[in-house]
């Protein structure tokens, strides 16, 4: 049986609420009759829509109920609210200042946060198909190792998906690390970019200014430059069809692209057709097309509109299953990641560009909310504490006929007003702080610009209003509950210190958070200091590391060693302890037990110059470039892990191990040192010898005139290489830079801690001023009766100091356990937390608080009782 259509049900109650009851029946009747007519004419969907529209059209004066209140002069009332608000603000300058300052400061942090998150959220928003673009991630699960999720995927996966999986509109494969010296005529310019296939410009929205997007990346040796890249190479952008030479190969410029937007997770100056790599790559990387080479390629796909993620994932799983059947000891699965979760999302290995962790953002938002709440607490506390002064006003208003709602409205409006007032200051503060924030660390400057926009300003104002509501709602509820009769009978009947517990706990909460922040800052700073000056197991003092950038080492060494300031020179493939590493597969006797070790290649000067300690054996000796390299020096850990020489370094000498498939003899055992950063536990390291390791020169400098030495080094460099800039850094500076992210965190948390302390101190100050003011008579009487000044100060400040200690008792253990049990466990070689670090923050906060409490109570205690008690 056919069902009778119903008009939407939700709209009728609305009508019933506002419509005159005597008209309601006919209106509803007529509407229903029309509704059936519409259903016949247009069908249910449109009829429903029409029903709602026509019902809403009845919201016109003739049909509406008359407003109950007969007083129509709302404007006058509103003006009165404004006036009383203004008067009460003007009368209590101190409290108004405290409130406005606290709110302004905390709000500016809020504004910063909004601008920051806004920028982060606008990443990759410019792609037309942004909602349908997904990246294929690889989940690698070796049998003897941990599961790892990588942002990259194998080229084979890309090809297979393109061939065999339906429901994908397009797919593009990218490879990173295209780079070299571009040669144009006689000029050489270093250029970095990506390899990308012909679908790249279809999947992503990177508009070409010149060239055909359909063919630009099709042929091998095609090159697409951004405007900036073209400008750098040619000095102009009208270069379509020009050739650029890399090494011995000519590339043709087939497209000029607009520069990549700042808010793009893909950043590049040049794109080279992927077909180029398909030609070359098979030569340089034999396993390039293999299922297991998933380290350097990225696959992005454009999902069809009617395809679901579940189906796609199921297809990917089937694909992985087939491929995994052909490999051993390892399982490789594919997963998909939406474009908008790439930049802000979970951490993946092998990310193609910078990204920011969603956890970090939530932590920052959390801190901001706490600071804002703290300022709101101040407002709440001070308003309720001073309730006596305004309760008469509320009493009178109620007697005249104010309803509870109106009183709430009045006080909320007042706090919103103050909040908007504070917004003006906070906006100016935001403009100044913005520069500071961006310059904390190059990473942040790279990440965001914090530019203002119309939408952003709307968010700002919304935040200001929200803060006003939050700060004002408790006082408003409190005032609206006041009984007119009670207040008007006499102030004495009003319990002056009611809600004292709520106020006390608000102060405790504020101080607890302030202490947690400040103590965390101190602890992290101590750890940072420790890491920067960490004993790595070798010496880094006065060592200048120079990146060779493809130049011949011999030539530079010859020139540099002539400098008197350069006492020793060594060569290495990489610099230890900076967080980069090369790994190799090492096997001892058991041919099936191969395991990953860290690897470095150095010349014979390296180990002595860096002060590495030999437990057994000896250093490499000089060999010519062409001798077979079959010697290795290992660290203690390697011997321990593989059980070489029954764990005795002396017995390990002469043992043969297989490193990356090559047999090498152990000739020395080093005392353990930090190949990775001190954040990680020491693991096995193998050091190979080469007369020409090729990446870095390490210079031991001993001079009194550093600038002169550096400039003569630069002079030598320029003579040998005029294409690249000299990249020379002191080892100690590089180590410090490795931990600069920690310094960045310290600066951010430190700043927030500083604000939190300021805001809670302001609040405390307000409360103390208020208490001493109201207790002035009590103090005077006590004084007349013989109480001493010290006694009075003690009496007045006792409760506040107790509150501080309660907060310290909560905050310090919480911070300690948080760091000791959670955060510091991520750092293998951290310093334990000292008592000094825990107490330093507390001491600082305590001193500030005591000065404030002391100054107020002391002056109150010294006041002349005769003046206060004169009119009693």
């Amino acid at each position: 049986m056919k069902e009778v259509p119903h008009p939407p049900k939700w709209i009728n109650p609305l009508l019933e609420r506002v419509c005159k009851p005597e008209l309601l029946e006919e209106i509803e009747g007529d509407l229903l009759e029309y509704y059936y007519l519409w259903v016949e004419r247009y069908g249910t969907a449109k009829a429903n829509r029409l029903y709602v529209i026509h019902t809403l059209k009845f919201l016109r004066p003739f049909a509406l109920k008359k407003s109950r209140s007969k007083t129509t002069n709302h404007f006058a009332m509103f003006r009165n609210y404004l006036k009383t608000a203004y008067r009460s603000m003007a009368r209590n300058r101190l409290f108004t200042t405290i409130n406005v300052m606290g709110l302004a400061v905390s709000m500016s942090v809020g504004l910063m946060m909004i601008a920051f998150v806004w920028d982060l959220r606008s990443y990759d928003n410019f792609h037309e198909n942004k909602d349908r673009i997904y990246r294929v991630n690889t989940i690698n699960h070796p049998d003897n190792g941990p599961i790892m999720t990588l942002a990259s995927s194998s080229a084979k996966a890309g090809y297979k998906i393109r061939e065999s999986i339906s429901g994908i509109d397009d797919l593009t494969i990218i490879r990173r690390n295209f780079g070299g010296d571009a040669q144009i005529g006689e000029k050489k310019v270093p250029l970095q970019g990506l390899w990308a296939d012909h679908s790249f410009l279809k999947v992503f929205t990177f508009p070409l200014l010149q060239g055909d997007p359909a063919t630009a990346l099709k042929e091998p040796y095609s090159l697409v430059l951004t405007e900036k890249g073209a400008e750098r190479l040619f000095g102009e952008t009208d270069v379509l069809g020009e050739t650029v030479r890399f090494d011995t190969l000519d590339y043709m410029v087939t497209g000029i692209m607009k520069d990549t937007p700042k808010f793009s997770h893909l950043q590049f100056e040049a794109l080279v057709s992927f077909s180029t790599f398909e030609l070359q790559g098979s030569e340089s990387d034999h396993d390039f097309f293999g299922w297991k080479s998933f380290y350097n390629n990225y696959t992005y796909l454009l999902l069809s509109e009617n395809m679901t993620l579940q189906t796609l994932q199921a297809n990917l799983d089937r694909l992985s299953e087939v491929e995994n059947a052909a490999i051993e000891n390892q399982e490789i699965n594919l997963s998909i990641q939406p474009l908008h979760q790439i930049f802000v999302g979970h951490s993946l290995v092998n990310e193609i560009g910078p990204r920011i962790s969603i956890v970090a953002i939530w932590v920052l938002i959390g801190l901001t909310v706490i600071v804002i709440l703290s300022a709101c607490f101040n407002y709440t506390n001070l308003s309720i504490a001073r309730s006596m002064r305004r309760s008469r006003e509320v009493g009178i208003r109620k007697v005249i006929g104010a309803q509870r709602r109106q009183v709430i409205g009045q006080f909320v409006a007042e706090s919103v007003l103050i909040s908007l007032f504070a917004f003006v200051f906070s906006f100016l503060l935001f403009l100044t702080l913005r520069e500071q924030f961006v310059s904390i660390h190059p990473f942040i400057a790279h990440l965001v610009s914090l530019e203002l926009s119309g939408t952003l300003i709307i968010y700002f104002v919304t935040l200001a209003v929200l803060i006003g509501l939050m700060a004002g709602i408790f006082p408003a509820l409190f005032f609206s509950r006041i009984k007119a009769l009670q207040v008007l009978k006499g102030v004495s009947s009003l319990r002056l210190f009611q809600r004292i517990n709520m106020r006390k706990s608000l102060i405790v909460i504020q101080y607890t958070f302030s202490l947690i922040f400040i103590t965390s800052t101190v602890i992290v700073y101590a750890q940072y200091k420790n890491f920067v000056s960490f004993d790595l197991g070798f010496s880094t003092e006065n060592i200048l590391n120079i990146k060779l950038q493809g130049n011949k080492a011999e030539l530079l060494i010859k020139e540099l060693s002539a400098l008197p300031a350069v006492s020793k020179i060594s060569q290495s493939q990489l610099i230890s302890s900076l967080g980069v590493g090369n790994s190799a597969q090492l096997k001892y006797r058991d041919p099936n037990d191969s395991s990953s070790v860290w690897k470095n290649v150095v010349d014979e000067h390296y180990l002595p110059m860096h002060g590495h300690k030999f437990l057994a054996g000896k250093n490499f000796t000089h060999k010519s470039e062409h001798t077979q390299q079959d010697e290795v020096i290992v660290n203690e850990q390697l011997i321990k892990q593989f059980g070489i020489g029954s764990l005795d370094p002396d017995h390990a000498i002469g043992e043969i191990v297989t490193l990356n498939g090559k047999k090498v003899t152990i000739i020395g055992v080093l005392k353990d040192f930090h190949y990775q950063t001190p954040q990680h536990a020491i693991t096995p390291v193998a050091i190979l010898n080469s007369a020409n390791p090729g990446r870095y020169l390490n210079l031991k400098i001993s001079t009194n005139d550093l600038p002169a030495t550096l400039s003569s080094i630069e002079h030598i460099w320029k003579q040998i290489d005029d294409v690249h800039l000299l990249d020379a850094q002191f080892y100690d500076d590089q180590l410090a830079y490795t931990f600069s992210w920690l310094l960045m965190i310290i600066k951010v948390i430190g700043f927030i801690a500083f604000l939190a302390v300021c805001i809670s101190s302001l609040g405390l100050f307000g409360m103390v001023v208020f208490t001493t003011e109201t207790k002035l008579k009590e103090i005077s009487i006590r004084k007349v009766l013989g109480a001493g000044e010290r006694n009075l100060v003690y009496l007045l400040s006792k409760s506040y100091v107790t509150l501080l200690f309660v907060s310290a008792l909560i905050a310090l253990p919480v911070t300690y356990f948080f760091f000791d049990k959670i955060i510091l466990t991520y750092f293998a070689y951290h310093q334990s937390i000292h008592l000094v670090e825990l107490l330093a923050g507390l001491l600082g906060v305590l001193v500030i608080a005591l000065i404030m409490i002391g100054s107020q109570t002391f002056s109150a205690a010294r006041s002349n009782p005769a003046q206060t008690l004169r009119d009693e």
Partner: protein
Amino acid sequence: MRKTYIGELEEVILLTVAILQEEAYGVAIGLHMEQQLNRKLSISAIHATLHRLSKKGYVSSSMGGATAERGGRRKRYFKVTTAGCRVLNEIQDARNLLWSQVPSNALTT
């Protein structure tokens, strides 16, 4: 305010009420105007106009009996009052007077 002032929409609806006699209620008026004049009015506009007319005293209204067709809700029936009749006649007379003065060739198109 001149008592005889009446808007064009009010005039048309007043006439429709007169035409429909015993059957003059909101929906019927709306449908009649739609069929005869091809003029679609929203139901709320009709109600509002009828409300104005009854305030001016040109229509009176009474509730009818309950019917099943509209969820048991009653209809409000309208009737043209004497004052309503007079005002319609006045308008008609005024128009006739003016029409009779228009020269015969003035409105040929």
